[in-house]
């Protein structure tokens, strides 16, 4: 199932609101109520978390529960960074390093491979592409956890960031996405023309392909960023408690300061903020990218 259009950021989708036969596209009252309800349900837990993060512990168990913000956000956030057993600041720094490295590497690897699969001819191409799709089915995280740990022990890399980063560079979805995207965005003729002009493959990739698939790279970056920022199991196993990623640090907060709700919630709110920012700034692109990706696969 493929479609002819793709939309770069800001490109208008083809849904002109022309009043055609319509009644299937008319929003009834019931529809509006349901949508409103869904939106509230989606936002409420996060709203509630932020409310708690701005209150004091004394407010938390009050009946009825507080639904408006208080004024303790600043001191709660300060307390999170001072909570010595959670190593929250280390967690943030580690997560930034890991997420940035993985995102950059995955985008680069996927763009290279995607171009080769989409626009170049070579023996075994189809078999290789099929194997990429198959690897998307394998839950490497759960399956490989014992041998990966054994590997890192043998290399002496336990508690290091490279041990967290390396396994995540294997991202079949990224290769697949960029293959589909390059197919759409880079017409064969363009590549051929560049060849006739005597450009090498590497030059074609750099001068022709990369500029054309930038929107796809952006979508992949955002998705990889979200995925890795939220990763929990592997860092939990390979890193020491005093050197966590942000997700592991929240769990530590949750465990060691369990009655200090405002602290736990302030930390959790802090961990979501980077992604919320990405979401606020690139929301439209994320939706566009998700929709593109879905239509193309």
């Amino acid at each position, binding site marked *: 199932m493929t479609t002819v259009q793709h939309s770069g950021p800001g490109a208008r989708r083809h849904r002109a609101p022309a009043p055609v036969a319509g009644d299937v596209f008319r929003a009834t009252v019931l529809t509006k109520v349901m949508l409103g309800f869904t939106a509230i349900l989606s936002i409420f837990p996060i709203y509630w978390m932020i409310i708690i993060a701005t209150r004091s*512990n*004394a407010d938390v*168990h009050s009946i009825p529960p507080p639904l408006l913000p208080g004024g303790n956000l600043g001191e709660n956030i300060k*307390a999170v960074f*001072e*909570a*010595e*057993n959670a190593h929250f600041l280390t967690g943030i720094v580690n997560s930034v390093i890991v997420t940035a490295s993985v995102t950059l590497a995955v985008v680069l690897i996927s763009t290279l491979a995607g171009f080769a699969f989409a626009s170049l001819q070579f023996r075994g191409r189809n078999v290789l592409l099929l194997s990429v799709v198959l690897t998307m089915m394998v839950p490497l995280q759960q399956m490989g956890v014992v041998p990966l740990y054994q590997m890192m*022990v043998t290399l*002496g890399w*336990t*508690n290091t960031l490279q041990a967290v980063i390396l396994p995540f560079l294997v991202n079949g979805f990224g290769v697949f996405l960029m293959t589909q995207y390059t197919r759409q965005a880079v017409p064969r003729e363009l590549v051929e023309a560049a060849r006739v002009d005597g450009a090498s493959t590497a030059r074609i990739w750099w001068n022709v392909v990369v500029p054309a698939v930038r929107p796809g790279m952006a979508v992949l970056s955002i998705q990889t960023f979200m995925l890795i920022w939220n990763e929990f199991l592997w860092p939990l196993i390979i890193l*020491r*408690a*005093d050197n966590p990623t942000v997700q592991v640090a929240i769990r530590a907060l*949750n*465990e*060691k*300061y*369990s*009655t*200090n709700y405002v*602290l736990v919630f302030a930390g959790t709110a802090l961990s979501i903020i980077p992604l919320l920012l990405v979401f606020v700034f690139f929301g439209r692109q994320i939706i566009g990218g998700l929709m593109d990706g879905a239509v193309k696969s």
Partner: protein
Amino acid sequence: MLNSKNGGRPLAAAAVASVLTVTAAACGSGGTGDGTAATASASASAAAEKVTITVQTFGSGENFGYDSAVEAWNKSHPNIQIKYDNLAGNFESEYLPQVNQWLEAGSGAGDIIGIDESGMGQMAARPQHFVDLAQYGLDSRKADFPEWKWNTGLNKDGKLFALGTDVGGMAMCYRSDLFKKAGLPTDREEVAKLWPDWDSYLKVGQQLKSKLPKTSFVDGPVTIFNTLMVQEAGKAGNLTFFDKEQNLVIESNPAVKTAFDFTKKLSEAGLSAKLAAWTDEWAAGQKNGAFATMACPSWMLGVISGNAGEENAGKWDVAAVPGGAGNWGGSWLAVTSQSKHPKEAAEVLNYLTSKEGQLHAFKEAGGVPSTLTGQQDPVVADAVNEYFSKAPSGKIFAESTQSVSPIFFGEKHTQVRAAVEQVLLGADQGSVKWGEAWAKFVAEGQMAAG
């Protein structure tokens, strides 16, 4: 809970603190070698390069209470800096597996690790993971400790691998405000008279429940079970789940069955708040007065004051525990064989387990010192816990520990304990029927023992 320097600590008077710093300089009580080794070698290694010694501990709230001890050491030892790291709240299910994983892997563990008594059986069976402390002259410390505390630190090859930090002792913490509401006496002497044994303790619980139907009497099954089991073990050859040949005796040991039966009785009488120890709601229950009593070793005081918070200061009190003395918990420190600086680590360990280090920890978190001189020190003997209605905590706990005989812990004790505690919780909360609980308890224990 947040390492609040002014938080509910068992505070000795500030005057005592200043006296302590003076005596620290003139340390060495009766030529026991207590602390002298450290000062001597500290000057010797002064020329060496700077090393950092990582100390890993467990426990929630104030855990080991090493903040002030570490601060004092780091000030006076510029070349050996201590990094003190509390890794996890729960010893059995979080800290121990994690540390074991690092010991197996050969990297990741700190230079010094804290070990709870229930894990000592397992660690003693793995001599390869730890340094022989006698190499660094720490065998001279033998006279400082009660015999059982010392012997537990010897591994299966008879080598010294760990020195004691604190001892648990045993008492019963109770909410005097709730006792008052229920028309029960609130004075700790009189409260102790209410429950010379466990059956009378149960009766007090029923009285309280008839007056305050919404309040539970105990926190949950786990604390009561452990308390009773270690008390009863004294009558059963000091054994709990394993005998000295490492055979599982969970089914035949009367200590286990007695503790189980009483826990069941208490639960069926509807006196339990059904809370699992070390969870969030358990901590909240201490704060909100969800239950009126909780068995408490000395280190538990810091947990309660940390969890219940300043607003409840003076509502908790401490009385003698039913059924006489007992000891639950207490820890040891060991130097791992993966440490790159075993000599310096041994110096730090020597300091932390010295009378001085233990008194620092006592003032910070309430764990009673395991050194004999530490226990007799006026700081402990005269200590009054402000948070617990000025209870003479030092005296209460020291008395309960002196007559204790050491309990033997099998190699797989922690795994078995973690597994059977889940069954108790399940039965208390209703996911397991009490009628089937004992069979399940035994079966889970057998499975965990492998």
